[in-house]
């Protein structure tokens, strides 16, 4: 069942993005930025974890989960170390994503040539 929920929830999140592009004429960058902020806001109310429980990768693969992970990491360290913990923990959970994006992006750029 989790596979179906992942497909449907992930698909629906993308539909919201498509509506922002088409109806509200937002640029791709504005759409992505709104989603990241939306993910952080949902996490602030503890809602995003419920969505992940329900939909698995349907909630962790869209970029909204980036905002959620940033806040989650910040809160975990914040609870342990006070306000400075927010700065210490922000990238804790997103490290794998950012590191692999930089690394693979760099390597691909070294090897390939733009196709146009």
């Amino acid at each position: 069942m989790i596979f179906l929920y992942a497909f449907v929830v992930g698909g629906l999140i993308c539909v919201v993005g498509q509506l922002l592009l088409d109806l509200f004429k937002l640029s791709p960058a504005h759409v992505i930025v709104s989603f990241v902020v939306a993910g952080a806001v949902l996490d602030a109310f503890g809602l995003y974890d419920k969505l992940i429980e329900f939909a698995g990768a349907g909630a962790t693969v869209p970029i909204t989960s980036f905002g959620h992970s940033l806040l989650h990491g910040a809160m975990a360290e914040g609870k342990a170390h006070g306000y400075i913990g927010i700065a210490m923990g922000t990238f804790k959970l997103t490290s794998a994503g950012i590191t692999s994006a930089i690394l693979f992006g760099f390597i691909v750029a070294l090897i390939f040539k733009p196709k146009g």
Partner: protein
Amino acid sequence: MSQLNNQKDYKKNAKSYQPKPNYVINCIKAFFVGGAICLIGQCLQVFFIHFFDFTEKTAGNPTTATLILIAALLTGFGIYDKIGQFAGAGSLVPVTGFANSITSAALEHKSEGIVLGIATNLFKLAGAVIVFGVVSAAILGVIRLFLNNLLG
């Protein structure tokens, strides 16, 4: 009859000449492609839990990394931009779109050198995501921590 030859209202009147996006078809395409990417993510996650030593909580890391690798390679082969034109937000919103924005910027500026081309332009498009993510996480984090402390 409204006249098109009217500088003041041109922006409004010209709208009837501009083709509208096909909202329904675009949403269906975004739904299926976006859903499919998440489904692949779910399969990868299950795979990492079953065959490697990952838990529900930590399996997200190798899953994200694998999706990013696939997206970076598709960008290198010149396929991701075609998927993007077809799927719209379907391939923009998943983390693969983030990887595409990094890889495409790096690849495009390769001709200007490794340091000043690839490295300085890597976050040209994706930088906004990180900036807004960190700023919103910091603001919300401080508020929540303050409330937690207040309420004990």
